C-alpha cells in the first residue's frame, strides 16, 4: 500500500480549475518532485497536502487515513517555504525548538534535539543567531532543521532553493539529497527548475495546466517524454515534422531528405523528437546549415537551419574539429535516440 496517496484530487477557485484529476501514490522514503511552469498547480497541490487549502474533489490519504479530515496543525508534516518563513523575533535555536514546544517535549530533550538538528544542517554554533543576521543559505538550513526536528511523516519543500544563487543552490541540492537519504523521510519537492527535479528526485511528476503530464524517474521523463510538453520542458529538444508511409513495404519514416525504416504502430504525420546532445554531424541525414556556433567551455552549441526547421546541436568539446558558421552539414542520430509521437510538430 502506498504511504501517501492522492486520489483524483481537484481544486477549483470559482470557475477556474487549478488542479484536476491528480492521482499519485508515494512510497515510504521516496523523494518526489512536482515539476512544472508557474501556474501549473504544483504549489496548490502541495498546499492541499499541507492542509492550507481544501481539495474541491478527491481524497488525500496518509497510511490509509484520510488526511483532509485532520487540521493542518495536527497533520505532523514538515514544511519548508519558499520565503523560509522563519520567525524573525526568535533565534535559530528558538525557531527550531518551536515545533517541539508545541508538542510539549521536555526542555532537556528539546535542547538536545535542537542541537542535533542544527548540527545536521551544518549550523552547529549558530544557535543564538537571529535570522536577519544570517545569509540566505543559512536561513534555508534553519528552515530545514525546523521542519525536520519534529520528525515529520512527510517533508514538503515549496521551491526551497529558488532564492539562492546558482553555486549555493547546487551545494544545497547535494546536501538536501544526503540528508533525505540519511533520515529517510518521505519528501515532496515543488520546483520549476528541471535540473533541481532531476538531480534530487526518485520520481518526477511533470505538471501542466493543473494536470499530470507524466510520472516517472528522471531518466524516464528525460529519455522517453510522454508528451510534447514534457520533452520541451525537460531540457532542450528538437522537434521535426515527419511522415510515416505504410503504403509501400517496408514502411518508412521520412523527414525531408532523411529517411529510416518506420517503427511499428503509427502512421501519417508524426513528430520526431531528438535531444540536441544526441545529434551528430555525418555524411547522410537531415541537411542543415550552421547559423551560429557558440563555445561554452566543455561543449559547443550549434544553432542550425535544417530543411525541417531550426535545430540545436550540442557537441562535447572532445578536441575534434567542429564545423564553422555557414557550413552545410548533415544531422544524424541513432534510431534509439529519437522518440516518435503521433501528430505534426507544433
Amino acid at each position, binding site marked *: 500500500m502506498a504511504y501517501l496517496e492522492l486520489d483524483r484530487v481537484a481544486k477549483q477557485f470559482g470557475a477556474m480549475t487549478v488542479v484536476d484529476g491528480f492521482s499519485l501514490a508515494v512510497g515510504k522514503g521516496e523523494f518526489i518532485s512536482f515539476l512544472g511552469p508557474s501556474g501549473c498547480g504544483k504549489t496548490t497541490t502541495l498546499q492541499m497536502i*499541507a492542509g492550507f487549502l481544501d481539495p474541491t474533489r478527491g481524497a488525500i490519504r496518509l497510511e490509509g487515513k484520510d488526511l483532509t479530515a485532520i487540521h493542518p*496543525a495536527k497533520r*505532523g508534516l514538515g514544511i519548508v*517555504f519558499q*520565503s523560509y*518563513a522563519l*520567525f524573525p523575533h526568535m533565534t535559530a535555536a528558538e525557531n527550531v525548538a*518551536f*515545533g517541539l514546544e508545541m508538542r510539549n517535549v521536555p526542555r532537556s530533550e528539546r535542547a538536545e534535539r535542537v542541537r542535533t538538528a542544527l548540527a545536521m544542517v551544518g549550523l552547529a554554533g549558530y544557535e543564538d543567531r537571529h535570522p536577519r543576521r544570517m545569509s540566505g543559505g543559512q536561513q534555508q538550513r534553519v528552515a530545514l532543521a525546523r521542519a525536520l526536528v*519534529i520528525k515529520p511523516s512527510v517533508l514538503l519543500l515549496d521551491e526551497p532553493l529558488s532564492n539562492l544563487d546558482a553555486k549555493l543552490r547546487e551545494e544545497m541540492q547535494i546536501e538536501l539529497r544526503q540528508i533525505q537519504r540519511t533520515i529517510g523521510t518521505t519528501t515532496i519537492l515543488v520546483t520549476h527548475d528541471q535540473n533541481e527535479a532531476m538531480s534530487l528526485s526518485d520520481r518526477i511528476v511533470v505538471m501542466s495546466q493543473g494536470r499530470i503530464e507524466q510520472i516517472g524517474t528522471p531518466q524516464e521523463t528525460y529519455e522517453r517524454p510522454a508528451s510534447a510538453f514534457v520533452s520541451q520542458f525537460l531540457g532542450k529538444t528538437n522537434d521535426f515534422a515527419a511522415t510515416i508511409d505504410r503504403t509501400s513495404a517496408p514502411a518508412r519514416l521520412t523527414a525531408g531528405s532523411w529517411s529510416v525504416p518506420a517503427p511499428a504502430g503509427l502512421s501519417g504525420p508524426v513528430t520526431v523528437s531528438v535531444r540536441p546532445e544526441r545529434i551528430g554531424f555525418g555524411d547522410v541525414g537531415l541537411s542543415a546549415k550552421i547559423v551560429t556556433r557558440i563555445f561554452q567551455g566543455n561543449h559547443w552549441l550549434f544553432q542550425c537551419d535544417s530543411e525541417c526547421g531550426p535545430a540545436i546541436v550540442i557537441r562535447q568539446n572532445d578536441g575534434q574539429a567542429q564545423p564553422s558558421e555557414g557550413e552545410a552539414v548533415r544531422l544524424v542520430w541513432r534510431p534509439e535516440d529519437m522518440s516518435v509521437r503521433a501528430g505534426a510538430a507544433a
Partner: protein
Amino acid sequence: MSAVADTAPQAAAKERGARAPWAMTAPALMLFVGVLLIPLAMTVLLSFHDWGQYKGIEPVFILKNWHEIATDPYYAEMFWRTFRIAILTTLLTAVLGAPEAYILNRMSGRWKSFFLLVILGPLLISVVARTLGWALLFGGNNGLVNKLLMSLGVIRAPIPFMFTETGMVVALAHVMMPFMVLSVWAALQRLDPQIENAAMSLGAGPVTIVRRIVMPQIMPGCCRARSSCSRCRPAPLPRPRSSAAAGSRSRRRSPMTSSSTR
C-alpha cells in the same frame, strides 16, 4: 604592489558608502534639529532664568523653577494625571486598534479600502467638529451614549462623561485610533504571509500563533503608534473640571510651563 594600489580606491569607496546614509538623512535631520532640538534646548535654558509679573524674564542662573516643580504637589498631580491619561488612552487604543488592524489586514481588496477610509475618517474632520460630535454624544444626562446605555438597561443612572477623565480617555482614544491602526497595519504588512502557515504546520493553534508569532512582530508598530499618540499631546493636562481653580494658580506658573501652553 598592485594589490596596495587596489586597496586605496576600495577603501575610499567604502568610506563613501559609509557616509551616504548620513548625507541622505541630513536634510530631515537638520529640520529635526532646527524645529525640535534647538527650541527644546532654549526652553531648558529658559527654565534656569527668573521671571516676575512686572520685571519679565531675567537672564540669571537660578534653580528656583526646578525646585518648585520638584516640591509643589500641584505639578506632581499634573504630571501624574498626564501620564495616567496617556497610559489609559494608549492601552485602550492598543486593545481596540491592534485587533482592528489584524481584521483589516485579512479583509479582501475592496472592503479593505472602504474600512481604511472609515478608520481614517476622524483625521479628515476638523477638530472642532469632532469635539462637538463627542459633546453631543456625551453631553449632560441626555447625551446619546447615556440614553442608549439606559435604554439597553446596562446602567440605571447616567454616567457623567463630560469634563471627566473617562470622557477624555474615550475621546482621545478615538482621535488616536487611526495612528494605532495604521502603524500596526504597516507592521502586519511586513509580516511574511507564510509565517502563520509555518507556525500552524509546526502544531500551533490560532491563539498561540497570535500570541507567540504575530504579536511580538507587531509590537514595534504598537510602540511607534504610542509615541505618535503622545507626540500629539505634549501639553501637561490640568484638572479638567476645576479649570477655574487651575486658572487662579496659573499666575504662579514658571516660564517653562506657561511657554508650553502658549
